[in-house]
């Protein structure tokens, strides 16, 4: 616990162009710490999809990242509308994103499946009208 590096980022809900800043910063930090490129990429992609979701579906939120020698733990929390049916949301191709989001290159319903694919653990806590917490763990394998 004591040798963990803790990072915190606020994610703005009204600037789509800045979505991904936090993920990019974490990626850069992991690189400078010498983590292997496979682990870095898995963290970056999973966190990026989650960050995008926070912006397009939940009006922003925050990320807490804990970097350990053997794993990276990420919490992404928002006060958005929550997810009514998590099983459905996890299906490839399921999306409630409006057309304007699709025109920006997202909203294909692949975000949560991608996150699942790249992480070793993924847990969703969500309450309608309250918000969503996404807990992700990526194990660093040498």
């Amino acid at each position, binding site marked *: 616990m004591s040798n963990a590096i803790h990072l915190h980022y606020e994610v703005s809900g009204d600037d*789509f*162009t800045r*979505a*991904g800043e936090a*993920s*990019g910063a974490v*990626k850069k930090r992991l690189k400078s710490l010498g983590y292997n*490129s496979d682990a870095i*990429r898995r963290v*970056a*992609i999973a966190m*990026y*999809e989650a960050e*995008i979701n926070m912006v397009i579906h939940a009006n922003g939120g925050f990320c807490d990242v804990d970097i350990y020698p053997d794993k990276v733990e990420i919490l992404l929390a928002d006060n958005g509308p929550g997810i009514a049916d998590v099983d459905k949301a996890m299906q490839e191709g399921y999306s409630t994103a409006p057309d304007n989001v699709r025109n*920006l*290159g*997202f909203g*294909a*319903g*692949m*975000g949560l*499946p*991608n996150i699942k*694919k790249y992480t070793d653990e993924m847990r969703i806590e969500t309450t309608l009208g309250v918000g969503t917490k996404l807990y992700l763990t990526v194990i660093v394998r040498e």
Partner: protein
Amino acid sequence: MVVRDIIEILKGEIICEGDLNQEIKTACGSDMMSDVLAFVKDQSVLLTGLVNPQVVRTAEMMDMACIVFVRGKDPDESIVSLAQSRDITLIKTRYRMFTACGLLYSNGLSGGTEV
């Protein structure tokens, strides 16, 4: 194949110059960023008709060295400066998506996946 070869094959124009000698092993053509993010490949180039900063961020997360904007689309200053800070080469080509992908494919670049 290196970034410089891609520019030549696609009669492209450099908008933002990164490492032109960076080796390119595979390519990916898409306007949906989550589709790009679904398959991790090594040292690749992204061809897209989509022009916004998230194209650069997607390439950043995937460690892609180069983005090709098809149909002669011009990225704005915010996109260019983002690419600059990430050391990603931006190219524009007048070819449309199908033709640009076909040209790279017939010059030996593959998608890097079986299907």
